[in-house]
């Protein structure tokens, strides 16, 4: 990675967060560069969600510093944070679509409410339709979140996260509670978004399968599906270099970052906690 010279998109510097003196993140440091993917794994309550929320400035660190696009957000006021947040897309765990708004209003919400987006009114609907087309949910504009299935809600939430074309995307357990087939289509969407728009992507998941897909597959624009990355023939056919997208795995244990590295290292790890998350590749 020739990334050392550029500013990291996201940088955690010895960040700690505690709730009622129970540590949720303890001394976490890492940096993610443009175009990288991070797969964050860990048991329930290991601080995965807190990490994403801290990156978005929803949770303030008790100590340490968080830099997003080179700016220190840890001490910013809420109003200043809105500017940074407009460049970050977030998929919440249970989708967090607004129940009282229909899908069109949900997806257009960031376009209309983020002060630094400045989307002209006549462009809102086309962009909403484009985002819904991206997640293959055309024709649900008038529906309410309660009328959609879990997988469809997840897709609508992805549409809401990507509608502003943010350069950094955070996905909190995108496949939780979904059947394996639906889960794979959601991951395919995430990979598609990453490869088409070159976004930096952080994915929290407990399914090793998800991480494996993100690390080793890429979007094929010709057939609209995923293909194994690093296969030269497929790469040339798709008009790409065939280089494997850079994906690092991170494992959290009770708020501490206990592993950070590529998939091969993760699979080679002898640590009983870490190897628990690793299943054999298909």
């Amino acid at each position: 990675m020739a990334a050392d010279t550029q500013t990291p998109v996201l940088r955690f510097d010895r960040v700690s967060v505690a709730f009622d003196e129970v540590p949720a993140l303890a001394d976490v440091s890492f940096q993610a560069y443009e175009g990288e993917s991070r797969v964050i794994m860990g048991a329930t309550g290991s601080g995965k969600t807190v990490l994403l929320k801290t990156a978005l400035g929803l949770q303030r660190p008790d100590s340490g510093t968080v830099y997003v696009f080179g700016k220190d957000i840890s001490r910013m006021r809420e109003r200043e944070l809105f500017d940074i947040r407009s460049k970050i897309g977030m998929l919440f765990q249970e989708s967090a679509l607004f129940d009282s708004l229909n899908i069109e209003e949900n997806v257009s919400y960031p376009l209309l409410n983020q002060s630094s987006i400045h989307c002209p009114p006549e462009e809102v609907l086309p962009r909403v339709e484009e985002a819904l087309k991206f997640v293959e949910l055309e024709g649900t504009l008038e529906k309410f979140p309660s009328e959609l299935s879990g997988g469809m809600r997840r897709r609508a939430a992805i549409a809401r996260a990507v509608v502003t074309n943010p350069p950094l995307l955070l996905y909190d357990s995108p496949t939780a509670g979904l059947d394996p087939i639906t889960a794979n289509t959601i991951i395919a969407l995430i990979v598609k978004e990453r490869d088409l728009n070159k976004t930096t992507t952080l994915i929290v998941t407990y399914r090793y399968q998800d991480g494996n897909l993100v690390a080793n597959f890429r979007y094929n624009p010709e057939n609209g599906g995923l293909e194994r990355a690093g296969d030269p023939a497929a790469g040339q056919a798709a008009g790409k270099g065939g280089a494997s997208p850079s994906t690092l795995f991170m494992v959290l244990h009770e708020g501490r970052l206990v592993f950070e590295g590529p998939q091969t290292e993760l699979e080679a790890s002898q640590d009983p906690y870490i190897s628990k998350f690793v299943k054999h590749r298909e």
Partner: protein
Amino acid sequence: MYGSIEFRGPSGLLDFLKEPFIAIQEFYLLTGRALRNVAARPHYGDDIIAQMDLIGVGSLPIVILTGLFAGAVMALQMSRALAQYGQVDQTGTLVSISLVRELGPVLTALMMAGRNSSGIASELGSMKVTEQIDAMRALGTDPIQKLVTPRMVATAVMLPLLTILADFIGMFGGWFVSRFFLDLPSQQYWSTVWRALEWNDITQGLLKPFVFAFIISLVGCYYGLRASGGTQGVGRATTQSMVAASVLILILDFFLGKIFVSQGVT
């Protein structure tokens, strides 16, 4: 916003006292921010109108029923007391003063606490536990600006209006009892009703609902926004908001009444 206070007490007593103090401090912070947002941009006018419809128009049936029967019961019970002095024809005076000064504002506010504090707490609480509040912040809106301020403004406008309505309906209930059960002439009843009222009564009768409106809306929002722990937490927030709002209304009612009575203009 929350939990930013570092205060470690040396003994259990301090820990015991810590929680209510933090709660009061957080409630003040919420109130301050909600009030400041009234003047700040962006304004969510549509949300204010929607809340006025929900909180104000939606409460009409309950307020009408409460007012009607409160007035009727007052007439019925007071006539019993007045009969001892042979002053049954003064029923209108008692109904009028007690309604405008006390029963109208307090009963309407208690009904609204039951209906709207709990409604607001459960709505905001559900949004909190399903991360919709976080999503709102992530998507560039301040939840206090978007959710709390419109509810506060809508309640502050609607509650005095609803109270006026409840007062009038209550006088009508009193008239019904006076006319058909106490055999008072309508003319007699209505003239005592009007003559009894002074400016002090009216001011008091309108200031109280205005103050109660802030309690109802902000207590509901406060408990809703600090809900945690899934559906159980939402249920807890709903109950707590209603209890806290009702108790605070009764306490404040006493102090507001005290201020007006000690002015000497009774």
